[in-house]
């Protein structure tokens, strides 16, 4: 629809075009939602997934048709792609939100101070009462020890790879880190278990820490590597040109610059291993009692507690499993938030 210059109508400017009002997308969304529900009701479809899908398709089609009519083809495509992104976003968020929602709903039933500060010592699975103090303690100790092992080794490996690594040794280390990233957690557990069996040892917390450290190390190496690579080479050169030795340059310039990112990576890898069940099941075994010594005797841990409580099939145990899940999610969420806070706080400031 080209407008001749002589045709001095409303559309005299070639830069102006039709524009949908701001509320249009919402109106289309509401319309397609209503239509989607209507169609499902008429066709007797009961599943909420079905009407949501119908509504989503209607929304995208409606957007295209309306935008193509009022605006133009390019705008219409733009709007369709925008809506596709939104639909994808919702598809990703809905399960997450519903998971958090149902965990909170079911988890808060028995979650209180008593639950957090008592063990399952004398409580049978079928009884109410009891708590997860022993499991929290076990998780904190096992994960803490695993971090103490994996974080320094991982960070130092990454420093080697980025700052010093050349040639075949570096390639070999990279290869093994890649392989380790893919190790299933049960295999890491079996590996430690085979060593334990050789020495005829009973399950204990630190054995679990070792397996968790194996799982955590490659994640720390990878994330730290990425962070170190983000440090501009110019900063290293500026420091070296001042006559600062390489190791001091790494310690005082490179690491501080990337500290926020490295800490975030470690926090996220902690979050990743805090939910591991398989190696803990094999190596730490689980216990109803408070055992604060990770180097001797079976211990509990949160994911293992959830697994065992849920597996027992009793109503009271279900409630406890949900409450423990909520605790675990909260723990991981807090770790994530702390990681983000640290990253923001430690990020190099521009202050302009």
């Amino acid at each position: 629809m080209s407008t001749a210059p002589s045709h001095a109508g409303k559309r005299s400017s070639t830069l102006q075009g039709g524009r949908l009002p701001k509320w249009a997308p919402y109106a289309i969304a509401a319309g397609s939602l209503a239509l989607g529900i209507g169609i499902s009701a008429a066709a007797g479809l009961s599943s909420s997934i079905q009407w949501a899908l119908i509504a989503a398709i209607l929304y995208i089609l409606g957007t295209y048709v309306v935008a193509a009519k009022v605006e133009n083809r390019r705008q219409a495509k733009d709007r369709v792609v925008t809506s596709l992104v939104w639909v994808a976003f919702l598809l990703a968020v809905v399960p997450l939100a519903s998971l958090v929602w149902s965990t909170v709903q079911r988890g808060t039933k028995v979650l209180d101070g008593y639950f957090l500060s008592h063990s399952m010592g004398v409580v049978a699975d079928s009884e109410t009462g009891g708590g997860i103090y022993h499991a929290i303690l076990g998780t904190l100790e096992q994960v803490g020890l695993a971090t103490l092992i994996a974080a320094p080794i991982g960070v130092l490996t990454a420093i080697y790879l980025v700052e010093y690594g050349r040639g075949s040794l570096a390639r070999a280390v990279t290869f093994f880190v890649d392989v380790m990233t893919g190790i299933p957690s049960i295999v890491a557990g079996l590996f430690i278990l085979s060593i334990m069996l050789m020495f005829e040892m009973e399950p204990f917390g630190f054995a679990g820490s070792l397996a968790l450290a194996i799982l955590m190390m490659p994640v720390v190496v990878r994330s730290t590597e990425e962070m170190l690579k983000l440090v501009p080479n110019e900063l290293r050169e500026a420091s070296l040109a001042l006559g600062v030795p390489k190791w001091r340059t790494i310690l005082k310039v490179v690491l501080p610059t990337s500290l926020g990112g490295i800490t975030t990576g470690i926090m996220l890898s902690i979050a990743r291993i805090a939910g591991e069940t398989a190696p803990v099941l094999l190596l730490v075994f689980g216990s109803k009692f408070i055992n604060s010594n990770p180097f001797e005797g079976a211990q509990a841990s949160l994911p293992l507690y959830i697994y065992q409580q849920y597996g027992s099939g009793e109503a009271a145990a279900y409630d406890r499993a949900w409450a423990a899940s909520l605790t675990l999610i909260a723990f991981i969420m807090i770790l994530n938030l702390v990681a983000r806070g640290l990253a923001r706080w430690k990020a190099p400031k521009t202050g302009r």
Partner: protein
Amino acid sequence: MAKRIDVSGLNAYYGSFLAIEDISMTVEPRSVTAFIGPSGCGKSTFLRTLNRMHEVTPGGRVEGKVMLDDENLYGTGIDPVAVRREVGMVFQRPNPFPTMSVYDNVAAGLRLNGSYKKSQLDDVVEKSLKGANLWNEVKDRLNKPGSGLSGGQQQRLCIARAIAVEPKVLLMDEPCSALDPISTLAIEDLIGELKERFTIVIVTHNMQQAARVSDRTAFFNLAAVGQPGKLIEIDDTERIFSNPSVQATEDYISGRFG
């Protein structure tokens, strides 16, 4: 204080690629020497051989001799870290340490080398910032991040950082190419002052700048891409710009080049 540089028969490689070939020249103490020449002819590479920064690049390798007064920088038993304390460097893009304040940036050289007395530090920082003509602009914000300054101020901060460790020689690789004309003038003035105390070598793409600030000018060129860069001639700046002895120099300066 300032020292003489005497280069003879210097080759520099990146892996097996010969980037600059057979360079010999003398740089007098307390003078400004400008390096000019087309991009890729090896000015930066040569500059970085003068404080052993070239070997920081993977594959970087140097043959030949660089005498700093009477010591060969590439002699046996020479510690590159010690060399870099004597021969400071300012880079093309201002690169203050982003985690450090203005004060800490200037103090970085001394602090990171661990060779300072706490009581001296304030004096050194003030003296260096004054030396870099930056003191008045930052004296009220010494504890603010160095990366919060303007580009020109950041570059002068980097100069202050470099002179705080009292080097004998100061190398500058296109220090003004990322700056506006006002900041460029400020740095050119500064170079005029600094040459009282240091031997200065500056790479520049700006002919007027070379003519304004330098006593001697060296022209580098390369026969073709992939060929090593060579020193064509070095002479008093006045002569290079009025009556150079090599035709290629005149062509380059008058813009009749490539």
